[in-house]
């Protein structure tokens, strides 16, 4: 198998207004590679939801995107508080987002479900007090 194209982005946990920059960058890269618009849309939204979650819930982290011939992998790593009950977090409508975040339109508890829906595979590894790693794959 040939080497994937690899991109790494730091995700700043303090800067809410610039949140989403990594996803916007990745969208540009995928466009340049000529992927079809619906695939780009799925990758972009899934990554943005994960990126925003790292900013809101984990104080930032790191996003890595690997582009293979037949799939795109997105790996999001943070050293935040972790997710105690992953099954509960995955439910539509579950959110621990604070009020100031909700007033911006986040906190509907739809981010993780969207990530699952828009990707072909999604895995969450999380340990309370240590951090969370989410790996997603979109097949091309």
């Amino acid at each position, binding site marked *: 198998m040939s080497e994937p194209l690899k991109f790494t982005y730091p995700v700043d946990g303090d800067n809410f*207004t610039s949140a989403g920059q990594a996803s916007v960058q990745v*969208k540009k890269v995928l466009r340049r590679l000529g992927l079809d618009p619906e695939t780009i*849309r799925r990758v*972009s*939204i899934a990554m*943005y*939801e994960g990126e925003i979650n790292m900013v809101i819930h984990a104080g930032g982290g790191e996003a890595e995107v690997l582009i293979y011939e037949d799939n795109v992998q997105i790996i999001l790593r943070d050293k935040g508080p972790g997710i105690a009950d992953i099954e509960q977090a995955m439910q539509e409508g579950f959110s621990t987002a604070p009020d100031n975040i909700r007033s911006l339109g986040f906190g*509907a508890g739809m981010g993780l479900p969207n990530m699952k829906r828009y990707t072909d595979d999604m895995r969450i590894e999380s340990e309370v007090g240590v951090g969370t790693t989410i790996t997603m794959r979109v097949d091309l």
Partner: protein
Amino acid sequence: MTVQTLAGLEGVRALTCPEPEREIRGVYIGDLLSWVMGRAEADNVWITIMTNINIVAVASLADTSCILLAEGVTPEQSVLDTAEAKGVNILQSAKPIYETAMQLREFV
């Protein structure tokens, strides 16, 4: 209908219009950003009253044809500048959401 045509409707005006020729297909209405990302389709008009900077990224990544702000709400200039730079059309309607949506009915 194109975004430019939409911007010409009564009570509607363009706050940014870097992509005037974009075609509009369908409408999605909502203020909760993850709902929009989960339910809106590419090329939809997205009607909302949210004006913070995150709407630009959401519209861009969800690939909507434009944001249509109802109730005459106006974002800060920095939001408009970012939208212009990112190629995101932002229109504004003076009317409430229901009337704004009804106005679009015959076009989409």
